[in-house]
Structures are given as structure tokens and as C-alpha cells.
């Protein structure tokens, strides 16, 4: 079967093409799509190239949130937004290699919706919203509703991701990933943490330890209540070690991992509790240090 390559020059043309050919496979950085095509794992009837659409490579401040266009690469995200989106930038730095980060995009990570995608934990921890467009209109999909199954997402067949909306950090953020070496690894598990002092809430999410990336809701609620009730958001006193341990345990409890070639379920659960405790201590140290700086 012949495959056709569609190269819309504008966003409206892209949406029209997707409406006309809902089976068309979008391609941005191609770092997932081309692997599949090179290995004959996929033979779409239409490939829909989005790299001609200049506006997709822009990011901007959009009210309360940063709007990251679907064509923004990991490399530009790291260069431009690391101060405002530290968690997402940390995760981006662990993606592949320089060549992969020069092409790969957060939107592509969302399109693939792999449970191992590194952008997902920070996006979940920071309450991101996916801005999906179609010829029918615009839809804002809360990130918690975006992942619907293993490599499945909430996009309708005629929809494209235009941008991801992420609130800039209002407190410390951390990301940790376990892999078999330092560069070019798909995570065995990964964990993202965002503390939100302005609302007294906590975002905690993991990848590669359930069919979809997932928030550890009980762990988030426990830690937020603990920090609020003990007055620590204001006092910034050292964390109670028992609370740190409990937080780690609750994160691990939220996971439903499987055994596979990259690691066993037990190892993943254990690793998650360790990463959760560690990132919490790092984030809190950061939070305490910031106060010292502002008081001095």
C-alpha cells in the first residue's frame, strides 16, 4: 500500500488534513515514529508532517500558565524554560542523547503516551493541560485525564496537540529516573515531584510502574496535610523522618508495576519508594535554602 506524505504549511491546513484523514499519523521530531517506520512496525496510509508549521515551535506566557507549542524540542525547552519549569527541564535532560533532544518534543512524548515517557511525571505533578485542536474547535484536556491506557491517550482521531499548558513552578521540583546507564536509557521507573507552597499542595507522579503514567494521590494528600498541619510550609523546619518514610511507602503503594526485561515489579516498587524519599529531601532542602536566601 502506498503511503502519502502530507506537508501542511499552516495549522489550519494540518487540522483540515487530519479531519479528512483521521488515520493519518502525525510526525514531529520523528524520534518515535521513524523507529516504527524503519522497522516496519507501522505503515500508515498518511504521514502528517508538522515540522513546517512555524508557530508550533513557539512558547509563550499564557495567563497563569506557560504555553509550550507542540514543536518545541527538549533542547529549546531546557535552554529557555529550565528556570520556570525545573521539573520538566530535569526530565528533558535525561531524554535520549543530544541528537534525540534536538528533535524530540513533549507533544510527541504525549502522542506516544508510553508509560515510560519521561515528560509525563513532571507534567502530572505540575497539573499540566493538553491543548488539543481539531477542525471542530479547541479542547483543554487535564493531564490526569489524558493517559487512557498503555500507549493510549484521550485524543480524538481528528485532533492534534497544539500545545501543552504548564503553570510555572511556585516551589521546588525534582525528577529522578532509574536506568541501566547514564545516557540513552528508557526508564526502569521515574518519579516527578512538585511542591506547591502557594496552594499548600503536592504533586507526585511516576512512570513505568503502571499501565499509564500515574499520580500517587494518597501520597500527595498525606504530604500536603502533614506539611500544613505541622506548620512547615511557613516554618520550613526540617522534615519529620517518619513522614518522609510514609510518603515513600504511599508512592510505592500507588504503583502496579509488571516484571519485564528492564526490571522486576518488586524492584520497581522498591526503587519508587527510594526515589520518592530522596527527591522529597532534595526538594525540601531547596525550599529551606531559598528562605535563608530571602531572609538574609
Amino acid at each position, binding site marked *: 500500500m502506498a503511503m502519502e506524505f502530507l506537508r501542511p504549511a499552516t495549522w489550519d491546513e494540518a487540522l483540515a488534513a487530519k479531519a479528512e484523514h483521521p488515520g493519518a499519523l502525525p510526525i514531529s521530531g520523528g524520534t518515535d515514529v521513524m523507529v516504527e517506520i*524503519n522497522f516496519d512496525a507501522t505503515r500508515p496510509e498518511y504521514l502528517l508532517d508538522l515540522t513546517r508549521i512555524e508557530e508550533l515551535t513557539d512558547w509563550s506566557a499564557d495567563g497563569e500558565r506557560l504555553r509550550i507549542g507542540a514543536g518545541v524540542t527538549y533542547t529549546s525547552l531546557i535552554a529557555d524554560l529550565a528556570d520556570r519549569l525545573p521539573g520538566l527541564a530535569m526530565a528533558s535532560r535525561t531524554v535520549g542523547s543530544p*541528537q*534525540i533532544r534536538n528533535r524530540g518534543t513533549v507533544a510527541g512524548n504525549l502522542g506516544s503516551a508510553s508509560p515510560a515517557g519521561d515528560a509525563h511525571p513532571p507534567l502530572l505533578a505540575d497539573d499540566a493541560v493538553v491543548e488539543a485542536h481539531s477542525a471542530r474547535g479547541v479542547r483543554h484536556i487535564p493531564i490526569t485525564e489524558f493517559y487512557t491506557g498503555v500507549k493510549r491517550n484521550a485524543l480524538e482521531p481528528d485532533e492534534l496537540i497544539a500545545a501543552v499548558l504548564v503553570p510555572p513552578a511556585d516551589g521546588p521540583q525534582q525528577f529522578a529516573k532509574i536506568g541501566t546507564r547514564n545516557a*540513552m536509557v528508557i526508564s526502569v521507573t521515574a518519579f516527578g515531584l512538585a511542591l506547591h507552597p502557594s496552594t499548600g499542595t503536592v504533586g507526585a507522579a511516576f512512570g513505568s510502574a503502571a499501565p499509564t503514567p500515574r499520580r500517587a494521590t494518597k501520597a500527595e494528600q498525606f504530604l500536603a496535610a502533614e506539611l500544613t498541619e505541622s506548620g512547615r510550609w511557613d516554618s520550613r523546619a526540617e522534615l519529620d523522618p517518619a513522614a518522609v518514610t510514609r510518603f515513600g511507602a504511599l508512592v510505592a503503594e500507588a504503583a502496579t508495576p509488571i516484571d519485564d526485561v528492564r526490571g522486576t515489579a518488586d524492584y520497581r516498587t522498591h526503587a519508587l519508594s527510594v526515589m520518592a524519599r530522596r527527591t522529597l529531601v532534595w526538594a525540601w532542602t531547596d525550599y529551606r535554602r531559598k528562605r535563608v536566601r530571602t531572609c538574609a
Partner: protein
Amino acid sequence: MKCTVNGQPQEIDDVWEGESLLYALRERMGLPGSKNACEQGECGSCTVYLDGTPVCACLVAAGQAADRDVVTVEGLAEDDELHPVQQAFLDAGAVQCGFCTPGLLVATHDLLEREPQPSDPEIREALAGNLCRCTGYEKILDAVRQAAATSAQSKAGPS
């Protein structure tokens, strides 16, 4: 499909735009410098510049390169003279089977454009996407340091 490769306009027919830029370069444009080892972005031996940015040519659809500017390892040397990065790889003995070399040359060229005097961690980071089965990397690091030193010297002018 039309694009510019190493400064030359190229026009190729019969290309399926969903095939990789790497395939188009090697099989349709007669530029076999960029190597094909993994076709999945893991080894970096196919690294080329696309509009000035180093990418894995195996992960770029040929149609995505249309009307864009591609520079391959074949475009680094000027006339008959090796680029200082190429010379340094030869001098340092950083080339054994040579399969990884074209990609490493482009990645190193890009690193030194951005950071003429890179630290060792910067070199390792910049070359993290380029695998070599032969050299154990020490000679490659030597070559990058040497290339940085040579370009610093030539910038300082003849002494």
C-alpha cells in the same frame, strides 16, 4: 524532493518521503559517509546537520528535509584539506573500524562551534549519543581535546 546538501542543491525523484533522510542520502544521493548501523537513533553514526542542528538522519523522514539545508560528514572538509576535527581524529588514533567516525565528527564539529574549549564532562555529554565499539572512547576524547587546541591555535593566528 529538493534540498541542499553540503551547499549543493539536490533534486531526487522516486523518493518515498517517509523513508529516512539517511536512506535518501546514502542510496539516492550517493553520499555514503553517514553510516547506517541501528536505524533507531541509538548509535549516532548517521549524525548530520539539519538546518544547523545535529540530528540522527535515520530518524528524519526524507520529506521533512525537503527545502532544508543538510550538511553531512562529506561537507566538513574544505577542498582537499581535512577539517581540523578530522585531522585530530586521525592524529589521535581515534579511528579504528571507522564506522562511528562520521557521526562523531559531526557531533564534535557542533560541540566546538558552540563551545570552543569544552571541559571533559561537556565532551562526554556532547558525544553521549555516539557509540563506538572499538576504541573505548579514550582516544576519541583525546581527539576532541586536540581539535579544540588546534582551533584555538589557528584562531590566535600564525606564530
